[in-house]
């Protein structure tokens, strides 16, 4: 059978997909063991035992100041920032992407501005951000939003403006106004693509979150990573990064599920 036709069943896919990830983990363990054979005190690629030790403190001891377990407090703080940032970015994307995508004059007017904002590296202009938004949660959330929203907006704008012209014409012959076209034709069809854009934005969103937490913070997964980076505590950094990856993959899976549940027409093969 040709490879293009070999479809993999759901359950098998999960198993097959896990193999390369396991191999990656094994490769890591092998390299780590090798380094440790040469230098038992190697810090760069800690062994699982070392990571367990490194994490024990964060997982089982409560912080004196807050009375919370550090690991969970970090997780909670970061997830909150990420969630708010992703939420705001998505909302912006939906609003701006739809308006720019459906209405050509708006696209001509604001499209270039969005492009300019998208290509300005926000981390280069942090000082201005700090002055405008302070150093608290707002600034961190804002950095995430500024980091991911422009890309998402450009993607959704391109998608909406690329909807078949027949559909827009058809809607107009059925009496739809620009607004009605926006909410009844463009919006629902943009939703699956929006969820796709959110999935793609998850990686960058974590990057910006960590950057924000590295700049000025006292809690959060990124804060902890940058704090212990001083001591090359890879025994903490690697579990934290793995945890971030796990959280992100869970979010990704949820987004896929939502898309399949709520927009079956976008996934059903049809003919």
């Amino acid at each position, binding site marked *: 059978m040709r490879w293009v036709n070999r479809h993999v069943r759901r359950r098998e896919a999960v198993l097959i997909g896990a193999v390369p990830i396991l191999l990656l983990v094994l490769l890591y363990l092998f390299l780590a063991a*090798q*380094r440790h054979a*040469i230098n038992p*005190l190697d*810090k*760069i690629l800690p062994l699982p035992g070392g990571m367990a*030790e*490194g994490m024990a403190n964060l997982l089982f001891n409560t912080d004196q*100041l807050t009375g919370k377990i550090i690991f969970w407090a970090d997780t909670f703080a970061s997830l909150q920032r990420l969630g708010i940032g992703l939420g705001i970015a998505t909302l912006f994307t939906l609003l701006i992407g739809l308006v720019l995508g459906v209405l050509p004059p708006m696209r001509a007017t604001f499209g270039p501005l969005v492009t300019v904002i998208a290509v300005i590296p926000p981390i280069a202009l*942090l*000082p201005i951000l*700090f*002055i405008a938004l*302070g*150093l*608290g949660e707002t600034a961190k959330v804002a950095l995430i939003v500024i980091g991911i929203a422009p890309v998402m907006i450009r993607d959704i704008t391109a998608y909406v403006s690329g909807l078949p012209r027949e559909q827009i014409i058809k809607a107009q012959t059925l009496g739809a106004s620009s607004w009605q076209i926006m909410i009844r034709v463009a919006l629902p069809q943009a939703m699956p693509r929006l969820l796709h854009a959110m999935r793609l934005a998850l990686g960058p969103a974590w990057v910006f979150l960590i950057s924000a937490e*590295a*700049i*000025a*913070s*006292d809690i959060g997964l990124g*804060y902890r990573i*940058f*704090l212990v*980076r*001083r*001591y*090359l*505590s890879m025994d903490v950094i690697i579990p934290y990064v793995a945890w971030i990856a796990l959280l992100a993959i869970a979010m990704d899976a949820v987004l896929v599920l939502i898309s399949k549940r709520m927009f079956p027409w976008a996934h059903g093969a049809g003919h």
Partner: protein
Amino acid sequence: SKAPDPQTEARTEFNIGWSIYAGWMPWPYAQQAGIVKKWADKYGIKINVVQVNDYVESINQYTAGKFDGVTVTNMDALTIPAAGGKDTSAIIVGDYSNGNDGILLKGANALADIKGRQVYLVELSVSHYLLARGLEKAGLKPTDVKTINTSDADIVSAFGSPDARAAVAWNPQLSVMKGQTGVTEVFNSSQIPGEILDLMVVDTATLKANPNLGKALAGIWYETVALMQRQDSKGKEARAAMAKLAGTTPESFDSQLSTTYLYTDPKAAVAATSDPALLKTMMQVRDFSFKKGLFQGASSADAVGMAFPGAKTLGDPGHVMLRFDESFMKMAAEGKL
């Protein structure tokens, strides 16, 4: 990780990492002015002086074995490579911070006013140490303030935000932050002289296998420092070049130098290194670090041993990881290089 350990083999090429700080600018200048090549040639070796823009990353790279030597403060030498199990020798004590680190407050002019504020600083760095020493002197408890970890690259702009009302920083950032309106420096490192040292450290095993590296480095350092101390046009030119390398103006660089106590004379450096006061300083630094949990997993502050000139040690003598080695500075003092 090749079969023969590169750190115990005699080699001819070495990498030295540095990052921007007033007291370390002689290194890149020496490279630029050909002083590095001159001394390296003399000992038949090659030395690459590599800039790392991010201070922490430069130490990480050293700890990971990518650099044979690196510029670092005494506290970070202890808590990062040494505590991480890398046997490290401090062969050049270049200077101590004599006002290059400071505590800044907005709208207040006494250190005691820091109570209850959020302090922006690079956590677990010499800034943190300075804050601890300051609080101690002001009779405050560490819990009287809340620290916010701030990256050294961003601390200037962070302090520009109205949210930030207290900060600890080092130069050149400190001088810029001090210049903002309503900001007062309420404590600085000149009040704890000799406690924040700026060093050139190298891997002990590499140094043992290649003593020429130590000699070349000492030679480079003292020739360059001597040059920059000159008040004639040559010295001025050298300082201007360093200022440019540091991304600042000659005036600003000179002002930073004025708060840096440079051991221009190798004899002075040897004396400072051999002074029992260094033991006391390092004990203080060590206790602070241990309290902050920087000796990962160690059960006592003695876990990481230190060695000083005259075979004196501090902490576990069976696990000496940081050695203050005055021998190369001494050679320079005696003109034996």
